[in-house]
């Protein structure tokens, strides 16, 4: 530790400062850091280790009080042999790709483009309404959707489609995937929308005016100027939301709990959660659930580190202006 400090340029510039003062300053700084450091250790680092260790055991609610039995990688082998593994993997891919494509990136981009091409105040109003699904408590939000997709005569969608001759049905049971994607997409779209909007508004007006003077149509301006200039935000939202979707299950849990029927809308993260923590039969397979979960953790760590590199977050980290007074 002492060497790092002695080698620091700023300190070298100040000449002879005793090593003791350096150590004291570092201790003082860690005094400020300690609450955050403790909580991050207890609720991020230790859980990652616990999750890995448990995934190597057969820990479940039937042998909770016994000493841990390590079974090596059996849980992982069992996971890939699971009869529903192909189904769950397929569901996860479908959930991530469709929600991301249609809503979190697709619709988000359309909304950002539409709201920046109309009156400023009106655009602000529509973006604000689109924020509602995100800030509405999830239970209440899903309650609204369940009622929209409810069976006749209660369902709102049936009532709205009746004039068009669509036969009434219990939409949530007949088309569970449609609503899983709608419910998640309406929450997810606002994140990309807000980021794309600020990126579009940051494009210098001169480019657009010059293109208009040359007779470019709105579509040409969007295709040749706007989209190329927001390609980094696009990439950022795509990668970031891929990870978010891959690990999210709250709205599916509230909407369908993975049903109707067997594993119809069950995704990877929900499987991990249900196996370990919320089983109907009161038999929690912590070890097995942890194996499902730990694979997601590995993916999560890998992608997070890649984001840090790709989006050059390191460059955002500035040096403090004064070091040690």
């Amino acid at each position, binding site marked *: 530790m002492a060497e790092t400090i002695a080698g620091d340029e700023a300190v070298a510039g100040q000449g002879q400062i005793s090593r003791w003062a350096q150590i004291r300053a570092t201790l003082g700084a860690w005094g400020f850091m300690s*609450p955050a450091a403790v909580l991050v250790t207890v609720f991020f680092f230790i859980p990652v280790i616990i999750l890995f260790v448990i995934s190597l055991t057969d820990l479940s609610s039937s042998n909770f009080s016994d000493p841990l039995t390590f079974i090596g990688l059996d849980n992982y082998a069992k996971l890939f042999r699971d009869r529903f593994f192909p189904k769950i993997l397929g569901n996860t891919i479908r959930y991530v790709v469709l929600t991301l494509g249609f809503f979190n990136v697709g619709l988000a981009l359309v909304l950002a483009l539409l709201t920046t091409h109309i009156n400023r105040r009106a655009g602000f109003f529509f973006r604000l*309404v689109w924020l509602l699904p995100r800030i509405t408590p999830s*239970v209440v939000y899903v309650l609204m959707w369940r009622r929209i997709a409810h069976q006749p005569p209660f369902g709102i969608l049936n009532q709205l489609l009746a004039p068009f001759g669509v036969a009434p049905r219990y939409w949530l049971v007949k088309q569970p995937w449609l609503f899983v994607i709608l419910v998640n997409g309406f929450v997810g779209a606002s994140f990309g929308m807000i980021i794309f909007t600020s990126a579009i508004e940051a494009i210098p007006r001169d480019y657009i005016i010059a293109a208009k003077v040359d007779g470019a149509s709105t579509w040409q301006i969007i295709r040749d100027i706007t989209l190329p200039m927001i390609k980094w935000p696009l990439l950022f939202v795509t990668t970031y939301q891929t990870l978010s979707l891959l690990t999210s299950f709250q709205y599916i849990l509230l909407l369908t709990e993975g049903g109707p029927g067997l594993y119809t809308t069950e995704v990877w993260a929900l499987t991990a959660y249900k196996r370990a923590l919320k089983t109907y039969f009161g038999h929690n397979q912590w070890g097995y659930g942890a194996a499902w979960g730990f694979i997601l953790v590995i993916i999560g760590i890998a992608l997070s580190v890649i984001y840090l590199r790709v989006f050059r977050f390191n460059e955002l980290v500035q040096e403090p202006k004064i070091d040690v007074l």
Partner: protein
Amino acid sequence: MATTTRDIGPLYNLRRFLGRSLPYVLLIISILPIVIGYAWLIIATFSYRTEGLFPIDANGNIGGWTLRNWAFLRDPKIWHVTLNSLGIALGMVVGVGFVSSLAAYALSRMNFAGRKAFLSLTLILHAFPSVTLLIAIFFVLNFISGIPVLGPRFGYNTVGGVALVMVSLELPLGVWLMKGFFDNISWDMERAALIDGASRFRVWWEIILPQIKPGLAALAIFNFLSGWSAFLIPFTFTVGTKVANLPVYLRQLISDTAPTNWNQIAAVGLFQLIPVMIFFIFTQEMLLNIYSGGAKGGV
């Protein structure tokens, strides 16, 4: 300008009008599900039952407004779970605000061994999906339950435990936002105070924090809303109604009572929405800003 367009002819004017109004039409269509959802919630709250968006009275005719769905307000249980919700929300506001502004001050103003590492770690953790750790956090909370003084307050199945988990998982975001606020403040006053012999802690409390009140307020609103609406963490780490918060209580109402009384549930839902709506109406700009910098991507 107006004269030139008129010269070009009515067809051009029509196209221009359609081109102008098309975005509005599309946007209005896009928000329909949201508007309909809210409309149903409000209508259902004040009616016996609903078919589609229409309130239906006892005889099956349209109409029949009632306040009986709000009878739950007389049940002491609802105030108990409301207090729990409020506890989690305020715990988030104070906990995240205090811990992250302490750490962010050190990260913004001091040079110390481990600074760079902690900063990159904050960023990685901000992107990292913390929900994947819930299974393991279950064991951490169980462990805390066994500690003498802490256990009853912050262990498994306590409001404090839920708040503690939520605060911790929110820290990477809080630290990162607060550091941004600190970086934008001038050093002059602080330097003067330090030279005059004030301690770092006093400088932080008396000079720096008052300067970032708007940032603190934005973070507080964000945290209040996420604490107030929290479902997954309270649902996972509490059992029964004693420590349930409003969303968990609402969820129990939906799944336990058979046949489900949707209209009473709608009323509880609307009750839960009140503080959210207050912030939504009065702090619009702030919300749009903080959800771009902050939101974990939610879904």
